[in-house]
């Protein structure tokens, strides 16, 4: 016995220990340049959201009656007083955009938290529960998915009443089936692996197996989905705001700002362009990050 032990032990290990999980993750994440750019843009977005009162030159709802629809400073008629110009009520566009970042961030965090928590919980239950409950949960999700997401959100807001909070709840409801399906699929494929059987033979109770053994191994796709849902949440809330069913004026939410600016599209391009650009950049940054996460976390793509 001692013989086997010493034989295998001495040369078996590599002199340089392989990198840890986190290091390995970071090194493959940073290989993706887009993802790193996305991460930095996202961090900047967070910073802007956190420091909005310090960064914004004016209050978001302060109206300057002497300066209606002033163009950005580089255009004729613009001035450095309002760097990106003003809207039809004489409010500073830059300040409103900066405050808008707060809303988008808040929306993203809340929606993703609600959708992920409910979705993952239901998904794990569906993956482990007896067939009847599984079928029941999945049929329910099918029903939710039978409605175009934006339409369902619109109708939910119509029921709950138009407000930012209700819009977020509606979007969380619409996003959550994707988490259920994803989690269930991941659970089903993990569940049949030998280490789960081993944990059961070791005496693990169902709850421990579900949440302590299996769930941590399903997290990679869920994290990616959460990142991508963050961008969907921002996008859909803006869309609801744009349709007048989300945040209500004068809230400086980007989609709502766009809706207010719609009638000026051919007269004052800036009131339309900048809020949309903010949405696009934020969503793009998060999606870039999400793609990077996927590549770094999904070993199937990593090794190919």
């Amino acid at each position, binding site marked *: 016995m001692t013989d086997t*032990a010493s034989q295998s*032990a001495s040369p078996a290990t590599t002199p340089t*220990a392989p990198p840890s999980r986190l290091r390995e993750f970071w090194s493959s994440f940073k290989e993706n340049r887009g993802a790193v750019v996305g991460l930095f843009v996202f961090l900047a977005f967070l910073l802007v959201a956190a420091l909005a009162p310090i960064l914004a030159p004016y209050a978001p709802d302060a109206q300057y009656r002497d300066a209606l629809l002033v163009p950005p400073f580089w255009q004729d008629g613009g001035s450095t007083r309002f760097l990106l110009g003003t809207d039809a009520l004489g409010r500073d566009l830059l300040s409103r955009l900066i405050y808008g970042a707060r809303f988008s961030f808040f929306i993203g965090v809340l929606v993703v938290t609600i959708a992920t928590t409910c979705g993952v919980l239901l998904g794990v239950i569906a993956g482990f529960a007896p067939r009847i409950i599984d079928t029941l949960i999945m049929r329910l999700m099918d029903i939710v998915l039978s409605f175009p997401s934006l339409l369902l959100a619109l109708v939910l807001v119509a029921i709950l009443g138009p407000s930012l909070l209700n819009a977020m709840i509606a979007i969380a409801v619409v996003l959550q089936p994707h988490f259920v399906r994803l989690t269930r699929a991941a659970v089903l494929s993990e569940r049949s692996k030998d280490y789960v059987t081993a944990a059961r*033979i070791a*005496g693990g109770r169902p709850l421990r197996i579900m949440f302590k053994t299996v769930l941590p*191994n399903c997290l990679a796709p869920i994290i990616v989905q959460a990142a991508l849902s963050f961008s969907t949440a921002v996008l859909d809330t803006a869309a609801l705001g744009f349709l007048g069913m989300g945040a209500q004026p004068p809230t400086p939410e980007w989609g709502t700002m766009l809706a207010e600016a719609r009638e000026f599209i051919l007269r004052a391009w800036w009131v339309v362009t900048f809020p949309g650009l903010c949405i696009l950049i934020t969503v793009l940054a998060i999606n870039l990050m999400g793609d990077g996460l996927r590549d770094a976390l999904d070993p199937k793509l990593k090794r190919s």
Partner: protein
Amino acid sequence: MSAPVLTASNLKRHYEVKGGFMQPAATLRALDGASFTLTPGKTLAVVGESGSGKSTLARVVTMIEPPTEGELVIGGKKIGPEGASRDRDLRAMVQIVFQDPYGSLNPRQTIGQTLMEPLLLNRPEIDRKERDRRARDMLSMVGLRPEHFDRYPHMFSGGQRQRVAVARALMLEPKILVLDEPVSALDLSIQSQVLNLLMDIQERMDLAYLFISHDLSVVRHIADEVMVIYLGEPVEMGPKDVIFDAPRHPYTKALMSATPMADPSDRKERIKLEGELPSPMAKPEGCPFNPRCWRRQEICLSVEPELQGGNPAGGGHCFACHNPVPEDETAAA
């Protein structure tokens, strides 16, 4: 010979396969009547091709699934179709090592956590310090080093992972170890390391092994008794030397003959089996082996042969065949 630690009588495990539209539900007879005993310090090897029910047998013996029929008696406790009780001591008695060293360890747990988990769940009276100590002792017993304790499975080679899997199985001090193709996924040079470890541990801890394998040369080396199964049914059973030197069932003989031996000077004429293993959902009438058998007779098509000779439940040589290979012929193989 010491008293058996496990007795299985007429174990069956069937699965109902739900039929689709216009297809009736079918019964998959994965395991169809196996009786054997396991004795401390001895190894019973189960040999068969894929789909023969070897792995189902492993799942039933480890009490992951209850038998559909028949019963297991483990340490005096009966386990029938109603399933095993949540009796910790009973479950701790039978542990398993799986084939795939990559799928059998939780990638999110360190080796230490993996080893301590069984104690944490089954021996709550043992404190943290003691758990830690026992896990570290076990680690050195299977030939791994102390610094491996805090590492994750992905940092290990297949052979090392298999050592960890053995260590985990031993943490609860079982009496029976089910080894489901424990070395099939390993390279030859690693395979012998793990086999030595297994034989060594058996001797030290007086374990009973149920060794499942398709590799006859490994079986020949490690087994005391051999059971050959075909389509879920044992077709021949007996002491290793008898099975290898004088097989009576045509399937056993064909299996031996088909296994290539690492000796170029002895290129024998193989017994060629026709066709492939039928689906366990559509088992042939009569002897399950009859469509592929070269000694088939009229009776084989209609009457299923019973295991005969020896004592089906307690050692001796027995086989299920109407027209067995004559004893003088077997010696030639």
